[in-house]
């Protein structure tokens, strides 16, 4: 569960790395191999994206810098 902005940033980086891996795999593997190897990665990608969206869906805590 993401609780602070730094964790959110790291999660976004992880999502980007996973997408890069999948793009490389699409270029270098047969369609059948890609279909098989991408399955666990796509699942994990969805989980991490869900974590990121859950964080963004939370209301921000009141901050001194916030304009009201």
């Amino acid at each position, binding site marked *: 569960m993401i609780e602070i902005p730094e964790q959110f940033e790291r999660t976004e980086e*992880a999502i980007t790395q996973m997408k890069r891996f999948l793009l490389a795999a699409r270029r270098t*593997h047969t369609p059948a191999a890609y279909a098989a190897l991408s399955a666990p990665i796509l*699942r994990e990608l969805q989980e991490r994206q869900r974590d990121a969206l859950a964080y963004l869906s939370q209301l921000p805590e009141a901050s001194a810098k916030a304009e009201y």
Partner: protein
Amino acid sequence: MSCRDIARGCNELTRSTAKRLPPPGVHEATLSEVVGHFGTNTPRRQVLASRLQELMSLARETRKRSAIWGSFVTGKLFPRDLDVFLLMQEGFGREFSALSPPQWYVFEHESARLLFEADIFWATEAIGAAVLASWLSLYQLTRDMRQCGIVEVILDDRDPRAI
């Protein structure tokens, strides 16, 4: 790396995992060492160790590298499952379609989850060293973004049944 270094690495790993997570970095160990350190404490660990040995054995002919991360290589008494990466020889992607059970089960996600209680991630060497290194670095952070190590399973030349 000498056998003594590997043994020392495993001891450090064991001490650290007593506090839950392996220390940051890639720790090399033979499959026997992994099973000896992580696959004996509880019946759950024994079951997972046996699954790990089975899947490694099925993949051994074309496996080039492999790594383990997640709860099995932590201090948890009852790990939920195995998280394994297999790097296969270039060209395996073409052979993959012709595989038959039980080898095929290793590389098909749902079957692997059912039979080996494992999330098995895999690719062939064609993926490239840079992409692979970047991707493996992902697993040196927990989902809550704490740094942790992974275990690279190396072949044990001393063991004629090495897998």
